[in-house]
């Protein structure tokens, strides 16, 4: 645990060593909350459905930007060689970096807490749905960040890492979409709905957002995140050979 924490602390601090972290957070909050507010005044409902509905799309761009630096920077400036010769297991370093990105995303989510507070002041929102929505958003983020850290490990260039993780995340987003699944089903019967059910994230995310926090949905996000973290560790170990 000690070594995970040491890596975590350095990575988390380094987000704030440059102004980019603040710009990220401000843009994230402006976009998510701002987008929501326009819909809010239009509909006049005291719920956050449109907020959580739009969040995956924002996260597709926001989260690869959070993770792109994690390994690509080490690959580029050569600190990889120092990290990989520290007396730590590779997965400790992976977890330290991953948790730092997760905490940073958590900070962004925390910033949107003003929305439910406002809602409780002007109406009586369904708090259960809001809590479930936040849980879903956090799990979705955990998944995207795991994809991002894995992809970042494969490149020296941050921009490349950003674009590739965006594409990979978008794939998981897209195959979960009902229209896409139907189209693919039209080409090869059954493939689209199979992908939608077991690979795509949209249905799992939508379930949780509706308040259906069932084990299958949790397992999907946790195991997908774990898969990419394991891949990241394997890629690190593999580079020695």
């Amino acid at each position: 645990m000690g070594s995970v924490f040491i890596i975590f602390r350095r990575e988390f601090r380094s987000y704030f060593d440059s102004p980019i972290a603040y710009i990220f957070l401000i843009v994230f909050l402006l976009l998510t909350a701002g987008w929501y507010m326009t819909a809010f005044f239009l509909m006049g409902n005291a719920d956050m459905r449109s907020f959580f509905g739009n969040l995956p799309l924002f996260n597709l761009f926001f989260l690869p930007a959070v993770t792109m630096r994690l390994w690509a920077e080490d690959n580029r400036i050569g600190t990889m060689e120092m990290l990989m010769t520290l007396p730590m297991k590779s997965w400790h370093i992976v977890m330290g970096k991953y948790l730092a990105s997760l905490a940073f995303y958590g900070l962004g989510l925390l910033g949107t807490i003003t929305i439910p507070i406002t809602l409780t002041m002007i109406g009586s929102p369904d708090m259960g749905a809001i809590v479930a929505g936040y849980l879903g958003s956090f799990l979705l983020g955990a998944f995207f960040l795991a994809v991002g850290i894995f992809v970042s490990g494969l490149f020296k260039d941050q921009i490349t890492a950003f674009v590739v993780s965006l594409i990979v995340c978008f794939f998981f987003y897209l195959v979960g979409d009902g229209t896409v699944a139907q189209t693919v089903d039209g080409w090869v019967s059954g493939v689209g709905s199979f992908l939608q059910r077991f690979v795509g994230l949209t249905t799992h995310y939508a379930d949780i957002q509706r308040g259906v926090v069932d084990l299958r949905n949790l397992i999907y996000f946790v195991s997908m995140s774990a898969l990419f973290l394991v891949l990241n560790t394997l890629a690190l170990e593999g580079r020695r050979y």
Partner: protein
Amino acid sequence: MIRVEKLTKDYGPTRALDGISFEVKDRQILGFLGPNGAGKSTAMKVITTYLAPTDGQVTVEGHDVTKDPIGVRRKIGYLPETNPLYTDMRVDDFLDFCGQARGLRGNTLASRRKFVVEACGLGRVLKKNIIELSKGFKQRTGLAQALIHDPKILILDEPTSGLDPLQIIEIRSLIQQLAQEKTIIFSTHILQEVSSTTDRVIIINNGKIIADGFISEIRRDLSDVTQVRAALGASRDSVERELAAISGVEGVSLVGEVNGSVTVELRTSRGQDVMKSVGELAVKNQWAVHELSSPTLSLEDAFIELVRRQTMGKEARHG
């Protein structure tokens, strides 16, 4: 104690190291010498467990690099060729991070940090961001990073590259100071650096060790090769023609021609006889002798000679 046995490392189809073996005893300081791309860095990367060996065995203080990499890493302080620094951190924060990552805490960390800051002369820049430092201070920070956990073994890959002469002398003397209690391997492609820092040297070329021993031994092994230097007052053509005809002379190379005096260097394996013949030749032709000497082989010459022999040996085998 570092033991390397028949170490081979392939990068895909390229063989970077080809079955090298050597040993470094406690408190020994070893210079790795070789042209760029010879395999020095690769050997160091395997010893520090950054890369896994393709074949062969490497143990550091009894820990095997493949079976117990963490055990090896605990014993080693490593300064890679690309000095690994988080440039957006402050020097003191960076050293703290490195110390903590190496398992140092509280008072031990504070006292070790104090030691490396003094040893590497970082007191003045402690609160600065690494990105603002000069190349010399960056290199010292890299060295401090490698020393913070008081490792028994230090692996330094080109520790003086890119520094100015004054900084080079500082780093060299620091290495010599550290050598009193640590086992050190450092690499360089500057020959003079080895002779001024250490006695034991391993010369690597094309992934193979072509010489291993004390500098004096390597010179002695090459004692069958000598050079005779002669400066004669005669025309260039006749000097070159007649000297090449002396028995035992393998090659004549022109060094310079000044004021009617031609300076040449002769490669031979029979230095004394050749000197005598050159003298006789000069008397016979009535040439003025400005210089006739047989300088001892410098490390530079030894290195060139060894690399030449290896390349020639290879051509002979292929041809």
